[in-house]
């Protein structure tokens, strides 16, 4: 077998070695926002099921989801959703082989951060 040095090779540098940079932080945030959206998904489905089950229970859950804490979680979920969506767009662009140099990736990173805030503000204004 050609590969005789198994398990004894240097590891590639990981989080503890690299200085944080825009590319790594925006990528990590895509993962965090995607998984955190589970909270918003559970709340929305709970709200849907409450709506189907009757007016009284709907009032309880609707009150929960539109309380100050509920509003914060829902607004945060909207921000996470837009950020994750723009991160997905960046991946779709990268998958075509474009914008893979550092300068372009940095520009897309800032576009994700600023774009997600703008889109969240527009969403909150629209609804």
């Amino acid at each position: 077998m050609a590969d005789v040095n198994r398990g004894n090779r240097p590891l590639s540098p990981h989080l503890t070695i690299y200085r944080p940079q825009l590319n790594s932080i925006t990528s990590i945030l895509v993962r965090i926002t995607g998984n955190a959206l589970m909270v918003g998904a559970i709340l929305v489905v709970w709200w849907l099921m409450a709506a189907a089950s009757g007016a009284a229970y709907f009032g309880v859950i609707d009150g929960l989801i539109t309380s100050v804490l509920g509003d914060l979680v829902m607004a945060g979920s909207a921000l996470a959703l837009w950020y994750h969506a723009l991160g997905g767009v960046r991946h779709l662009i990268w998958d075509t082989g474009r914008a893979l140099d550092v300068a372009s990736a940095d520009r897309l990173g800032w576009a994700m951060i600023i774009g997600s805030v703008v889109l969240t503000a527009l969403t909150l204004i629209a609804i």
Partner: protein
Amino acid sequence: MAYVTDRKRVTGLGSARSGTQQHWTMTVTSVALLLLTPFFLVIIGGLLGQPHADVLASLSRPVPALVVAAYLVVGMHHMRLGMQVLIEDYTRGLSRKIGLIATTILCYGLAAGGLVALAQIAL
């Protein structure tokens, strides 16, 4: 140096083929979700905090019901595969298996719960 063959080292770790399938499924579902997200946010965001009767009236119309149903089905499939990546990156062994089973149940359970609710509202 361990006395194992190359075949033994990689067996059970999954093939590049299924990884390619996972990546492609994420690509397809992400495009679908991109198209649906603005409509989903306007529909659900606009209905949160509205009177019960208005919520039922809106969600029993075909287009809002279709958007929410499609978003739940595609979104929860996407969520399941995304959480699978997270779990496979950070856990191994029994906790990985339990995590994968639990997130699969949770994701498809949420999609099913939402669909049943929509059906109850529409009918």
